[in-house]
């Protein structure tokens, strides 16, 4: 398995992950009722994240930040009546990063672990749809559109959504495309070109969902942008 960042330092990716995680942590903490325990948990997690990003005992500090975020996210889920899945992407990526860190000293392992964990969420989503039977042929997508779109929307996107709602074959086509892109997410892990291709497909999928329904998975999109393309990160000194 080759990475687009081979020969480059992954430290900037660790910072990207830590910053996105910190942003989500603050959003979750802000949505909870303000209490000394919530503030203490958040502050500790933020300190742990800084240590993680700076490479100080990253396995320990990263695991601490993830555990504390898990507690806050569960509290938020209890308060909101269910889990908020858009909060998960950064936690998933940190989990994968920590798996890679635990496994060895190859600088690529955390980055590949994070990518694998992120892709697992798409495979998970596809498997869930397959387990529910004839998902693509059902009206699930159309039901989602009518629930999320305003009835008085006369914009171009509104017309597009209405077209999908009123034309079963169009909805089916989009549903099958969703299944293929999600189930094929494992291809992302094969190599740099596959990563760029499938990362772009997943970004298009997220943007399409966002434009049609207003459901934005910002963290997943930011992570896909950071992980999928061969950004000119600093070279690793002494490496080939």
């Amino acid at each position, binding site marked *: 398995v080759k*990475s687009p960042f081979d020969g480059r330092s992954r430290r900037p990716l660790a910072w990207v992950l830590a910053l996105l995680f910190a942003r989500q942590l603050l959003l979750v903490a802000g949505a909870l009722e303000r209490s000394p325990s919530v503030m203490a948990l958040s502050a500790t997690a933020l300190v742990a994240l800084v240590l993680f990003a700076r490479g100080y005992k990253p396995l320990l500090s990263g695991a601490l930040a*993830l555990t504390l*975020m898990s507690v806050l*996210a*569960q509290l938020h*889920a209890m308060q909101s*009546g269910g*889990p908020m*899945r858009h909060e*998960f992407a950064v*936690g*998933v990526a*940190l*989990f*994968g990063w920590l*798996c*890679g860190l635990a*496994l*060895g000293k*190859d600088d*690529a*392992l955390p980055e*590949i*672990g994070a*990518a*694998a*964990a992120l*892709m*697992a*969420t798409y*495979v*998970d*989503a596809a*498997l*869930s*749809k397959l*387990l*529910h*039977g*004839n*998902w693509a042929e*059902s*009206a*699930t*997508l*159309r*039901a*989602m*559109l*009518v*629930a*999320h779109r*305003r*009835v*008085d929307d006369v914009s171009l996107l509104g017309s597009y959504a209405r077209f999908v*709602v*009123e034309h*079963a074959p169009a909805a089916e086509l989009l549903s099958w495309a969703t299944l293929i892109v999600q189930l094929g997410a*494992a291809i992302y*892990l094969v190599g740099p070109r596959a990563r760029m291709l499938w990362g772009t497909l997943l970004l298009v999928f997220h943007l399409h969902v966002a434009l049609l329904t207003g459901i934005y998975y910002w963290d997943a999109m930011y992570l896909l942008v950071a992980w999928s393309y061969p950004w000119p990160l600093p070279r690793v000194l002494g490496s080939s």
Partner: protein
Amino acid sequence: MRARLALGVLVGYVAIAFLVGNRYPFSVFDMYSRTTDNGSRIVARVEGRVEEVDRFVSWRCEGEPESCDQEGAISTTEPVDREILGWVHAHAGDSPAAISVELVRRIWRFSRDAVRVEDCLVQRCRAVRR
């Protein structure tokens, strides 16, 4: 090592998620997986025309909201319902300029060839157009 890690994390995450369900950071992401033949949204109905609820303020409603259970299995989206009904509660009032507005659940019933639309009365209210 890299391939084993990638495969291990991918399969491991999926397996753990299906074992524990939704425990951060694990989830089966099944929120849009349920099959259905209908969808719905709560809207405001004035003289037979439907509009978005946030087009109105100063809401005053009679009784408790009805659930529409008698209409059979209706697919609802809790966060969206909560947001719409939250608007009604957050913009309660008693303006003399209020007109009769019905809160209805608009239901779209889908088949391969057609979409059938029906409304189920949730609550009779009075409100002021913004």
